[in-house]
């Protein structure tokens, strides 16, 4: 089956065949054998043409793969996703990038804006205290604030929606 493997500015087209714990990966220039044996939930011992790796696939974040301790960002697009992308679905999703949510639990100590404010990319949006540190969260893109879902002084969980920029 055909896939596209993407990371930062690199992209490869590959063909993957599965035989039990083995994958045969055909790239433009190379044929690779990958054997992945689970050693712990979500952690694999991988041999790629006899090269040895320990690879962790995180629970909530499948695109961030831990290879020998290094976090590697990778996306794996199958035929369906590739087709959706051709139909322009990707650009539709881009507006969603204006939704700022928390990466860790913490206390919202200050919010610098109100709904309707115009913000430029990189401008501070709010302050959050976590692990004894004050973290300044910046705008991921320029736009107008559509929604603010929390108040100053509120304790929030990981993944809470805070501000939406439209």
């Amino acid at each position: 089956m055909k896939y596209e493997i993407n990371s930062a500015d690199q992209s490869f087209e590959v063909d993957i065949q599965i035989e039990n714990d083995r994958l045969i990966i055909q790239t433009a220039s190379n044929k690779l054998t990958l054997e992945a044996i689970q050693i712990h939930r979500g952690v694999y011992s991988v041999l790629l043409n006899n090269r040895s790796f320990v690879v962790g696939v995180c629970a909530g974040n499948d695109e961030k793969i831990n290879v020998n301790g290094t976090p590697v960002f990778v996306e794996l697009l199958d035929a369906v996703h590739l087709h959706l992308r051709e139909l322009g679905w990707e650009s539709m999703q881009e507006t969603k990038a204006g939704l700022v949510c928390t990466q860790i639990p913490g206390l919202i100590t200050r919010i610098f804006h109100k709904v309707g404010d115009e913000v430029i990319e990189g401008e501070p949006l709010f302050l959050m205290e976590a692990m004894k540190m004050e973290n300044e969260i910046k705008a991921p893109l320029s736009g107008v604030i559509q929604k603010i879902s929390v108040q100053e002084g509120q304790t929030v969980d990981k993944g809470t929606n805070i501000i939406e920029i439209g």
Partner: protein
Amino acid sequence: MFKKILVANRGEIALRVMRTCREMGIETIAIFSEADRTAPHVLFADEAYLIGSAPSSESYLRYDKILDVAKIAKADAIHPGYGFLSENTGFAKQVTEAGIVFIGPPAEAIKTMGDKTMARQSMLQTNVPVVPGTEEPINDIKEALQIAKDIGFPVLIKAAGGGGGKGMRIVEFAEEFSDAVSRAQRESQSAFGDGRVYIEKYLEEPHHIEFQILADQHGNIIHLNERECSIQRRYQKVIEESPSPFINVELREKMGQAAVETARSCNYFGAGTVEFLVDKYKNFYFLEMNTRLQVEHPVTEMITGTDLVAEQVRIADGQVLSIKQEEVTISGHAVECRIYAEDAAQDFTPSTGKIIMLQIPNGTGTRFDGAIRQGMEITPYYDPLLGKLICWAKDRDSALNRSERALREFYIGGIETTIQFCRSVIRHPVFREGPYDTHFYNLYKDELHAELTTFTEEVLMVAGGTLHHHQNQTKHSSQTTGSTKPSRSSWVTSQQRRQDK
């Protein structure tokens, strides 16, 4: 000698102190917050007492409760570790008044040296050179701005009540000054319960070099050489080494004497650290004295063969120092890498979650002072330091090779850590070369982070292939894992990440 010591701390330093206590035949008492019921320091200790809820202000900073435990458990002495109450004069006094030995300097020395502005004032009476700056904490913001202008920007705003880069700000322009002061005050209040900050001249191309000292209660004071601490990000140390690749024998001698003089000036006893800034012409300035054990104390232990905690305990017990200045030698080279639960690629955002897999490096010359365990939850309540990897070898090059090997071997799955960031620093040619200064991180930030996000085709095939295999497996056995959530569109996150940069 003491029979029982209460360690008024948590995390890696609590474990570090307890290990030495146990080796000395002393029973250990842990205190813990509700968030730490199964934390490693609780599991290690002989006794453990709950003292309050998760926030430090309700537990690890509550010295009334800690004293109650000390009395109930019949502790002979209290070791404060670093951070929390370690530089709190009030605590030290109350401990002593309760008839319990405080393992640290006399309260008077903490008061003088623990308070950065008083320390500066006190040092101006000696021959030890001091960095230009305010001598009082900032009260009037306008007056402070004038002083800052007189010293000349850039200036540093620093917390009077604590160290470790918390509450610290560098200000380059006058218009940013007042906002920076108020943020530093808030952060300092939250970290140390003391919102006072002061201003200092920002030296160019400075090296942060500190000297470990030991002083007994009989007037003997020695230094145990320097630690090079110039690799910092967010004004917080990440990698330290000893000896420093920047200074030479003559400078070591001069600075060591200055460190001893500093300790003598405040009738110090116990372990302490005198921090200096050294400019590129090898002029050095007194920066501050930390009247407690430092995070990075192990590099000194490795090259001198001493156990600094054991020395602290013996000094507190009234014993004479076990070594003389002329017996202190430098054997080999040691490097410490701090492993934080932080996402280096996301501007060192703290990372919380469960450690799903853990592999701690080991072998010749490889030491890890930590407090983590597979299956453990990293909570957002405390400092994100997971532990410190300390590597020793015959010379600097071998110690760096060993650090790189050990960092590669280190595997913490489930949360983000600074392991890879430390590897990038250690592989960097300027760091390898040696005499780097405190600007290292800002100068080479982009290169360091590029290494964290650029991968070979081989690594990408491994990542992509394993992801595919994993998705395939979980698809076929959906009842075994609870996380078979419908395949979330893979590229939304990926997009978001790109825009976060």
